């Protein structure tokens, strides 16, 4: 199993109260799935996503990534997971503004320790695939939102991750651009990448093969789409 949550809680203690963000989450996601997480604001969708991406930690319960308990792995291993298994895209794109398109895509490969020539080849491949070759020397601020998200995706998958986590990837995009991005995600999923996305958009959620609904930090439904 790629992702496995067992009795997962996330809470904050405030004064005399304990505020639960997530409560009693039990969830398995296998390799190759495309999961959409839905729910109202404050339901804990993003928190769940960040815990899955090992950017946040659960308060109780256990999270197994590739059958290894994440709470027991060290910092170094966690960085390894980030480098080789997990890619992220965000609503706000979060490209590095001081870097060109090319450099943005290249950065995770640098961290991965990939050699210069190989890196060049991989980035070229990505640029080619996303039709960005002509834009490789532009800075993010010179691109449209949709293009920025494309670069963000290219960056996320350049390192060939097993898992792509997307936090409302279409939230800042027009419907057309959004559709384009969703099509791309489906395509990536078909190539074997596991995708977990958080979204508010019913229509885009249906691009996933499985929809999980969260209400007040608990899973209220878990359905497969047809």
């Amino acid at each position: 199993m790629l992702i496995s949550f067992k009795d997962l809680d996330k809470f904050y203690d405030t004064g005399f109260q304990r505020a639960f963000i997530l409560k009693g989450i039990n969830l398995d996601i296998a390799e190759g799935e495309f999961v959409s997480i839905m729910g109202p604001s404050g339901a804990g969708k993003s928190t769940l996503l960040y815990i899955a991406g090992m950017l946040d930690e659960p308060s109780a319960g256990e999270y197994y990534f590739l059958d290894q308990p994440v709470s027991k792995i060290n910092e170094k291993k966690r960085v390894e997971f980030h480098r080789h298994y997990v890619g992220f895209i965000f609503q706000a794109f979060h490209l590095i503004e001081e870097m060109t398109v090319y450099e943005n895509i290249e950065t995770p490969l640098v961290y991965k320790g990939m050699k210069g020539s190989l890196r060049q080849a991989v980035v070229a491949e990505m640029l080619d695939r996303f039709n960005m070759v002509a834009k490789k020397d532009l800075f993010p601020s010179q691109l449209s939102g949709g293009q920025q998200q494309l670069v963000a995706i290219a960056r996320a998958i350049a390192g060939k991750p097993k898992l792509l986590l997307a936090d409302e990837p279409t939230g800042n995009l027009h419907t057309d651009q959004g559709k384009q991005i969703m099509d791309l995600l489906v395509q990536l999923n078909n190539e074997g990448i596991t995708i977990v996305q958080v979204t508010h958009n019913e229509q885009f959620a249906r691009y996933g093969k499985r929809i999980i609904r969260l209400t007040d930090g608990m899973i209220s439904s878990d359905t497969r789409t047809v």
Partner: protein
Amino acid sequence: MNHYLKLAVRNILKQKTGSLINIFGLSISLAVCLIITLFVVTEFSYDKFNPNYTEIYRLLRVGENSRVPTHQIIFNEVLKTDLAELGNGAMVFNRGPESLFFQYDNTDYPITNVVFTNPGYFNLFPVDFISGNMNTALDAPNKIVISESTSKRIFGDENPMGQLLKCDNSFDFEVSGVFKDPPANTHIHAGVLASIESLKTLNPFMTTSWNNTSTQFYYLLPANTQIQDLELRVAAEFKKACPNSNGGETYQLQPLSKIHLFSSDITWDLADKGSIQEVRSFIVIAILILIIACFNYINLSTALAGKRTVYTGIQKVMGADRKNIFIAAMSEVLILMLVCSGLAFLITTFALPGFNKIMGFTLSLAHIDWVIVLIFIAVCLFIILITSVFQSWNLSRISPASILAGNIRNSLIRGKASFSRFSQSLSVLQLSITMLLIVSVITVFKQTSLVMEEKLGFNKEQMIVLQNPWDENIHKRYELLKKELAQMPEVKGIGASWNSPGENINNYGPVELAEIGEPSRVLFGQLPVDEGFLSVVEANLLLGRNFDKALVSDSNKVIINKMGMDLLNLKDPLGQKVKNLFNDGNPDYEIIGVVDDIQYQSLRENGEAAIYYLYGSGLYRVVIRLNPGDMSASLKKLENIWKDIAPEYPFDYKFADQMIQSNYAQVIRTRSLLSVMAFLAIAISMLGIFGLGVFMAQRRIKEIGIRKVNGAKISEMVLLLNKDFVKWITLAFIIATPVAWLVMHKWLEGFAYKTSLSWWIFVLAGLLAMTVALLTVTWQSWRAATRNPVESLRYE
């Protein structure tokens, strides 16, 4: 690596405000660091060029609360014969800042630091002879050796060898050698060396008396010498040989390496002395300034742009580990430091002449050698390391989840919330250092005004000191001058003395109570004066009366100072009889008055006992008090009178206030440096505060919007934003006060008279920091507070 550097450059260029503040602070503090390194290295380089550096020792006589480097010439004769180790020595009788006049071709050349010594001098302090040789140059009376520059000055291109120089109109010296000028970093700056044999005719008393202690002894001692043992044997020799010895004298052999920097407690010392205390405090100040600039860097680069935290969050998501973040942080500091060190050299080039002027240094960039470059590089590397460690640590603590969730606006605000307690404590520390420096400046100013104004014991204004050179006419000249000046309305008074206030007392001799004898013996500064002296300097007569010329009997009366009265343990000194052993064979003197202590040397040393008595001859200093008016006209008139009376001597005078000033050159230097540094510290830390003000206002923009929508006034908002800064400054005040008190208390220990560390000094420093800081941030706060809340709240 390329990847990181490229990004670092873009980051620096993008954050203009922050980068400018950082570049300003870092390059100025690096320039300070460079200048102070230059100073420190120069100070430590003294005498190192001497091949005998590690084997030369200077003999010191250790008293109860002082060490003295001067001894009786005949004592060296004893030591030389009795102690084999001390056979290889040099005697140095240094005339110091007092000029001797050498006459050649009817022109007078005043020369300071004339040294009388024996041929052995050149064994210890080798010089390069251009002509003459070290063995014969000083082997007979009336021979002198001069430096190349002195030769140029007097003889021009003529060959000086064998030429005669008339000294003080009475003695002929024959030039027997010329040597290359030694480097400037030596503790003896002798341009003219005369054979010590000459003193036998010049001042025979000096070469035979056990009561004349004015000559320094240097010895060449091999590394295996038992120094402590030798010191005891010297004391034993003294006890055996000196007729007046009470056996209590102890001796020390001071290594050459300690003479320049570790001699500030030594009195009656003409060595070119620095002060290790000064060197240390300069180093500390440089470090403090660097710390302030580094804190700015750490705080601003993490706080000023909230983007930085987002950026780190993204890096982490992309798989950056601590090492990657560290390298990214380091690349930025590295580039910044490269720019700053270049600027630092530039600033130093432009600032050094001004700095030299303020501080009285002669530092030059030409003195930069590899040691200084290495120190500078080490400091830069240290800063790079420290700031990048702090910064990457600070950044990698942030949880990316909290930054990256949601949309940009939201994340920016959350990202900025990371301005942590850590950063706050850096700001507080910065402010504390600034306050510490302000307190130091105020205290040093207060202390200098105490010792240079209040504790003088005489009135330094409108007072000039004229040199009356020694010859058989010295007394006649003075009487003539006195008569002439009596008719000048510009002159308020005239008096004469062996030494004037504000310069060292030349002679010391034991004085004891006639009744008690030896047990009451105390060393007194010997000051022959005329009857006008004490009134012309406006000494404060505490008891009894001044001398009266009309009373013939006053020739066996003395006036002592307050310190002398205390040391002799006299409750009722008037009428008491004392024996002055300095004047061999004189009758008992009667004390007729007590004056408040007059300041001779600087008050770093303890006040000294001094005894004043009437004496017809040896009144080398004519003290003249002028009435307020056209000073230069009065001086011109005086000069003309002098030229009439003594055409053979130059009109050589000093202003008393300038003499005092130069006595405190070092303290004034520390004061100037502290003032400049405190100013820079304030400037750099206030820039930091300004940066934080921008940041704090940004961080709370939403809060302000909400408050304003709910009816808060602008003044209330400004208050709200300034509250944090007031809190920090208060905290800084609490930290700085005890530290500053301790530091200043320690500094004042070096003075015999201390100013009080009044409470208002600390309050003033606190208020000053508070005022400047609030002025700096209020503008930011006001801008934030007057912003339209709609702008900040629109997207929520």
